[in-house]
Structure formats: C-alpha cells, structure tokens
C-alpha cells in the first residue's frame, strides 16, 4: 500500500477511536445498576449470545471464533467481550444497538444474517442496552477473530444491502391487542430475542425468512428443525402446554427428546428461562394454526409398509415399543412425533443412519442414546421403515423414498458432528 494512503487510514482510525472514546458510555448513569445487569443477563440467555459467540467446550465465553455453518459457507463469530481492541469494549451503545437491531457495524459494513438481527430487531432498545450492560461485565478476552470466512462471492458484505432490502424489516415487536399478555410475551420471545424463527422458519434460496410459513420447519447443518406450530401432524398439536414447558426446561418430555442442535439450545438457553416465559412461549406456539399443506397422504404402497413393519418389529420395537408409543422420558413416542411425520424427513433419516444422544440436563441426566443403523439398513430398508413409522398409527404422512435416504446419507457422510 502507498505510504500516503497508509497514513491517512492511520489518522482516520485514530480519529475514529478518539471519537469513540469521547462518546463512550460514561454518559449513561444507569449502566452499572445491578438489576439492569441482571435483566441483561437474562435477556442475553434468552438471546443465547453465548452459544454462537463461544467455541464449544474449550472457548472463553463470548470471545467468538466459533465457526458457524451456513448454506453459503462457514462464517466465524466475532469477539463480543469488552476487550477494547479485539472485542466490543470501545463501542458506543448506539453502535451496539445498530449491530444487534439493524445489522450494521460501526464501520458501516453490514452483518450477515447468521447474526439474527432480523429477529433481534423486534427487541426494544432498552432490552438491547441491558444486554450490553451485562456483556460489559464479562471477562475481556484479547482474541482477534477473522470473521468473514465465507467463500467468494458471499464474502462481499456490500451485497447484504440487497439482502436487507429484500428480507429485512426493521421494527420492534408490536403487540396484538386482541391476544392475551402471555400470548404477546410468547410471541415476542419467539420472534425476537429467542429467535426461534432463525432455525425453525423456512428460508428462501438467499436465506431470508419465508414469513408466510412462520415456524413451519427449516433445514440447517444437516438437521431438519421441525414445525413448532400447533399443527396436529407435523407440529406440537399433541403437546400440551406443560409438555412444551417441560421439553424446553429439561430437554425431555413424555413424547420427545432434544438432540443435535436443539440440545445445545436447551442447555445454554431455554433450560434457564423463567417458567412464566416458558408458559408464554407454549401459549403462543400452540396458537399457531394448522398447516394447509399437509400431504393428503395416499396410503403408501403395501410392499413398503409390509417391509417397514418387519424392520420396525425386528429392530425398533425394543425401545420404541411394538405400538410405537415409546417409554415416557426415555424413548420418544413415534406415534406422536412431529419430527417423524415431517414433510422433510432429513432429521429422521439422520437419526436412523447415525444414531444420536439426547440432551442431559440437571433435571434429566439420563441422556438415552439411539444406536446407529447406517451400517445395517440399506436405503430401501430405511425408506421402508420410516414410511411405516409415518403411516402405521394415528397420522398419515406419506412415504419416504430410497433416493431421499441415499441423498441424505451422502450429505451426512463427511459430517463430524
């Protein structure tokens, strides 16, 4: 770089830094107030900043450097500890708020929506600043992180201007006055800081939320995050509010168990939510209406069902029961499983092929595991047994094809998780 340009950048940076210091938080008198920090801690837990901004198991909290898998490549999370040089210690409140609720960085560049600002925009400024107050109290970690690790052309941040125009609607949550306070609280949590939509709402090919299909299920990192509306076939229709609360709090309920990415969410976030918030979320989710696109479910071919029944009897009934009802808190009920009946069977295929371990929490430490069947069942057999499970009992959910199994098997082959 030419010397002149270097010098001007240096001066520019120094000026910006001086301005930042000059406009620092010292002006806000409430910043160190204990209850603000407490509230911020709770909201940060709901927003689960920890999970994305910390390398699992070995990373320093909030110091970033966690690789996040997106459909466009791997992006790396920044350091949000108060370190002034490598973290956000030197940021103003406005800069923090702009990042979280607008997706804009202090240098004017835009954040990718891996940072769920389209959800966080629903939070009021005071909630965001409470989070900031909490984050200002965590241990500063001096760790520089190169965040833009996406491959070309996705690494061109300027393109986010277009994306934002297409998919980002700025604005706080507006309560629906025809609904109860609990419903509104639940809606706020789910759409805002809890950002459930980030994983559970289907995405367009550019990664924007398909708002018309809110919370109907979406694929990410090799998992299908299921429909969590009140739909009776693919969603939480069979779950009571108590079931939803128990699941979020402990990772298990009488029907299902959290595994994969949701296990992390339970451990880091939902298991710490207040009971009243869990009830609010349950109220909101159960209110979301039936899907219009449930398959009319023609009865699958009898050869698929017969073969599937034989495999189920021989290999699955030992845990999930001859009647598919499982054992509460131990083996999920396949009869009532939204995941098993989902239009997108990826998670079901993945569990059958690779096995899984359900989450262990303080209240539910058992963490039962499912063995891997990938070596034992070929694609036809996996398709048959899943077809049987989806159609044999109370709900009809259409067949699973051997091709779908084969595609998923190939995609999973190189995964390490």
């Amino acid at each position, binding site marked *: 770089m030419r010397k002149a340009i270097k010098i001007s950048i240096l001066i520019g940076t120094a000026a910006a830094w001086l301005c930042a210091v000059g406009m620092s938080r010292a002006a806000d008198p409430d910043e160190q107030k204990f209850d603000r920090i407490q509230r911020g801690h709770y909201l940060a837990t709901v927003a689960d900043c920890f999970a994305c901004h910390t390398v699992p198991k070995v990373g320093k909290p909030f110091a970033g450097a966690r690789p996040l898998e997106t459909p466009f490549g791997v992006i790396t999370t920044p350091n949000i500890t108060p370190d002034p040089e490598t973290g956000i210690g030197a940021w103003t409140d406005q800069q923090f708020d702009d990042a979280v609720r607008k997706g804009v960085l202090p240098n004017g560049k835009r954040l990718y929506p891996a940072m769920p600002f389209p959800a966080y925009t629903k939070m009021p400024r005071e909630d965001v600043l409470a989070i900031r107050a909490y984050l200002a109290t965590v241990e500063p970690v001096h760790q520089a992180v190169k965040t833009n690790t996406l491959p070309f052309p996705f690494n061109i941040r300027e393109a986010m201007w277009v994306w934002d125009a297409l998919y980002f609607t700025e604005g706080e949550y507006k309560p629906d006055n025809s609904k109860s306070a609990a419903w509104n609280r639940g809606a706020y949590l789910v759409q805002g800081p809890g950002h459930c939509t980030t994983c559970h709402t289907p995405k367009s090919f550019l990664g924007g939320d398909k708002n018309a299909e809110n919370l109907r299920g979406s694929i990410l990192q090799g998992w299908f995050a299921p429909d969590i509306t009140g739909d009776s076939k693919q969603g939480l229709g069979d779950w009571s509010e108590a079931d939803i609360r128990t699941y979020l709090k402990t990772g298990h309920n009488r029907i299902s168990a959290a595994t994969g990415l949701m296990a992390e969410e339970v451990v880091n976030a939902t298991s710490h939510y207040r009971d009243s918030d869990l009830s609010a979320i349950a109220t909101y989710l159960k209110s979301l209406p039936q899907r219009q696109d449930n398959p009319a479910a023609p009865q699958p071919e009898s050869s698929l069902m017969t073969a599937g029944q034989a495999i189920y009897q021989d290999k699955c009934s*030992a*845990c999930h029961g001859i009647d598919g009802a499982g*054992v509460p808190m*131990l*083996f999920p009920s396949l009869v009532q499983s939204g995941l098993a009946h989902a239009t997108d069977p990826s998670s079901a295929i993945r569990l059958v092929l690779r*096995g899984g371990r359900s989450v*262990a929490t303080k209240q539910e430490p058992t963490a*039962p595991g499912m063995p891997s069947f990938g070596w034992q069942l070929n694609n036809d057999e996996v398709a048959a047994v899943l077809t049987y499970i989806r159609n044999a009992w109370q709900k009809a959910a259409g067949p699973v094809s051997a091709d779908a199994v084969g595609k998923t098997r190939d995609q999973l082959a190189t995964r390490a998780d």
Partner: protein
Amino acid sequence: MPRKLPKKDVVIVGLGWTGSIMANELTDEGLDVIAIERGPWRDTPTEFPPNYAQDELRYRIRHELFLRPEQTTFTFRNKMNQTALPIREWGSFMPPNGVGGGGVHWNSETWRFQPSDFVLKTHLIERYGASFLPEDMTIQDWGVTYDDLEPHYDAFEYLCGTSGMAGNLRGKIQDGGNPFEGPRSRPYPNPPQKQPFSHALFGKAARDLGYKPFPQPSGNMSQAYTNPLGLHLGPCTYCGFCEWFGCGNYSKASPQTTVLPHLIRKSNFSLRDNSEVTHINVDRSGKRATGVTFVDTGGDEWEQPADLVILAAYTVFNVQLLLHSKIGTPYDPVANKGVIGRNFTHQTISSVNGFFDNKKFNFNPFISSGSIGMCIDEFNGDNFDHGPHGFVGGGYMGQVQTGGRPIQTTPVPPGTPKWGAAWKSAARDNYLSSVKPGSGVHGSFYSYRDVYLDLDPTYTDRFGRPLMRMTIDFHDNELKQNAFLTDKFAEIIQAMGAHTVEKQYRKGPYDATEYQTTHLNGGAIMGTDPTTSALNRYLQSWDVPNLFVTGATAFPQNAGYNPTGTVAALAFWAAAAIRSQYLKNPGPLVHA
C-alpha cells in the same frame, strides 16, 4: 519413573458397581474423586445396542465384553501338592473388564444373604456343635449383621429398581414372597417380573409339592422406572440376551443405567479409562497409602496421588493388587498364618435338564430375562435341619433359565449321541419342549484351609509380575450338599411333567474349564480379628487405614445366593462409615 499427576482427595480403582456407588457417595460429600478403570468406557447405544447385541457367538462364546487372559490371568491347581498351571482361556469363571464391570453383563439376580449367614460360625456351632463342622473348614462371622446392612440392601434395590415380591416385611411373612428371607423395611421398588411358561410351571409344581416358590428378585425392570438419582430405565422386553451381554434398551440395572449419567455431570468427578492400576503406593511407614500407580495404553507409568484409596476392582484383582503392593501379611496355609489370600471361595452350582412331550409343551425358551424364574429357598442356608444329612450349607433352586440361545441351549435327552442324524433330530424335537435351567441349584461354598490365593512361583503377567495362583477344590461338604439339593430339584422338574429328567450333579475335582458362575469371593476378608481377616467391619484395611477394599473380597465364605446384592450393600455401608466417621477423623475406625 512414573510421572506424578495432580493430587485428588480420593482415587477409586475400578469403576464397576462398587466403584460407582463409592464415587457417587464420596462426590456427594464434596470430595474430589478420580476413578481409574483398566478397561474401556462402555455405554448402551454404542457398545451393546439392540441392533447387534443379540449375538450369541460374539458375546457368549467368544466373550467379547470380558477380560482377555493375555492381559491378566491366574494359575490354577486343585491341591497344594500340585503344580499350578495358567488358565490360558477362561473356563470356570469369567472376569469382567471395562466401565460398569460385572454390572454390564450380570444376570441382575439381586438377593440378600440371610441373617444367619453373617454370623455363620456362631450359628452353626450353636445349633449343631463344633464337631459337626469339618476340621479344616475356616468359616467365620463377618463382623456385621444383617440388621446393619438392611438399609443398604434397600438403598441398592431402590437404586436398581429391583423387581420382586417381599417375603418378610418388617417381620411379617408375606404370601408370594420368600418366607425365609430376612426382614425388609419396605417392599421392592418394582413388582416382580411376569414369568414365562416353563418358569410359571415350575412354580406350580413346587407349590403342589408343598414348597413356597417366589419370583427371583430381578434387576431387569418389570416396568418403566425412575430411580432416586432421577435416571430412567425402561421395561425389560425378555430378549433372552441378558447375562454375558450388555442390555440394549436401558432395562437392566447396571452402573450405566443407574449411576453414571448422574455421576459424570459432577464437576468433582472424573474417570480415566484404559488405565491399569498396577500398584497401591504406601509411604515408608507402610501404614499410609499415598495413591496408586497405573499404566496407560502406551505402556507409560503414572502416579495418581490421593488421600484416600478405594480398591473397588473385581474380587481376585483386589487380592492380587494387595499381594503385589505388599499390603497385609500373605496367607500361609501350612502355618495357618497371614490373611491376604485366605478364605477363597466360589459357588456350588448344578442343574437338572427336563424333557417334555413336544406335542403338549411349547416353552418358547427364547422369551426370557436374566433374573427370571420361580425359586424355592427351603434348602438354603440353615433353613432345614442338617443333622441327619452330614453337611452344612445349602442354596436356592429354581427354573432360572434365562434364554434359549441355540448354540448353548439345544439339550438332547441323556444317551443321545453327540452328533449325527440322531443328534440332529433330537435337537430339533426337544428345543421348544425342554428346560435347561443353567444354574438351577445355586449352593453355598464354605471356606477351607487349603482353598486360597497366593502368588505363582513361575508364571508372570505382561509386566513381569507374578500371576496370582488359585488353589481350589471341592470338599465333601459341598459335594454332599449339592447331591442332596440336586435330587430335590430333580423332583420338582419331574413334577412339572417331564418324561425324562437329566441330573447333572456337581462333581469333584473342581474343574477350571467348566463355567460355574463368576462368584469368586474372599482373599481379603472382613472380620473382627486382624489375625484372621484383612479388613475390619467397615471394609477398612487393618494395616493401612486410608485404604478401603470393596467387593466380594470381603466375604469370609460364600452363601447360597448370588453375591451382588450383598457386595453393593457392603459398599453403601462402607461409604456411610467413611462419610460419617472416617472423614471427620481419618484413622482406624475399629481398634481390635
């Protein structure tokens, strides 16, 4: 020179049943605990999932879950005047290896010993006179009573979700249970398992003969169960792949299903697997353990210092470590002095096969579980007058057939050739209509002066340390006991409607190639007298007060029951003593 690791409060050698119980109790006390296990980590969905656990060849015949003799074995002889030779492949017993220990592959038969078993010597002499006992029988009282252990039996049964029918509830005899058992403070946590056909039929036959049959107390769940640690177990599905195998669907009580998921979450607990402890280290005075030395998979030696050492390995490995570490005086059978190695015992097992008309009886023997069967206890312990019979001891008996795995369960009537067309058709015609109880007669094995453990003079292990030598044979007492019991058992099998009954008495000499349960006991027994016991009543070493030794190592003699219930109760009892007494005032808990 072993490299030293950071000190812990407690090091536990072996993470089987007693290691897990100890670890859980002592971490609850706030201590920093590390367990060191010779074998690998094992868990249900990975090591014994229900999609390939049903492999008789792999797990029962080639015994994949067990220790390899190449890693450690023993030498064996019947009598002191013989040369002991190595047990090159397992036969009469099969030592476990790996996290969970025997708790992974056990049947889960969960019995309590009788009150008289704990004061056996006093009791028998009182009833029959000292001269009734063989001169070289070395039975002893334990130093604890049934009443001492009752709350700890209860704790283990509730930890496991033991399925059973109480026979004696606070002194009141209950219909349908074992009328001979010691009083229990409350019922079993789960109702008894339902019995398949042949097992129920045995119960009926026994009842018709005037006995009081009861369902064998079982660590296979009769229904879904949540234990006091919040861990969930599922109902047993009668797969017939229980003992020798790990349970694939969380329905057998094991450390994996009842303790480890809770224990592993504690920040003051950690476990090293694939690490073999080779030495318990003591300081210069010889009276204080400083920790243990172990070898990792690369062959490197490490030292794990600790303030408290719990030796919780399988019986005979406990004794072996004590001998190698030179803790306690080795037993000399000639001089009748010393304690480490004395009172070594096994179990006196026999069975009776029954053959029935295959047009009238279809037993579906493959529908079974590990701890199934209707049993009778009329001939156990001192439940009957031994005066006319000239022996002491006894055992329970029952149609305890645990499965119909075909390699081992294609009995043919006596006299059938072992091969050829006649064998083939007999195997075909009798599989579904025969009973093969396995350990139908499960008798006591009392202790003798010339049945003991010591170090072999010739053979060594892969570290160059002497193998431990077993000198063991049956004495007349046990053979008489067994003949008597086997005859009684045969009567009941006959009464079921068998057209042919094949008695398989236990005969001497003790054969190290025939499987006879893995209930090895003794070698570092508990007692009240340091000249005839290695441990005091709290399983604390008389010689090294910060060393406790759990397991059936402590049994002065074996009773007519499976040992695990008592092994676990003793572990809870010792843990309670450590928590309430030892930690407040480390040092000998008993002054002899």
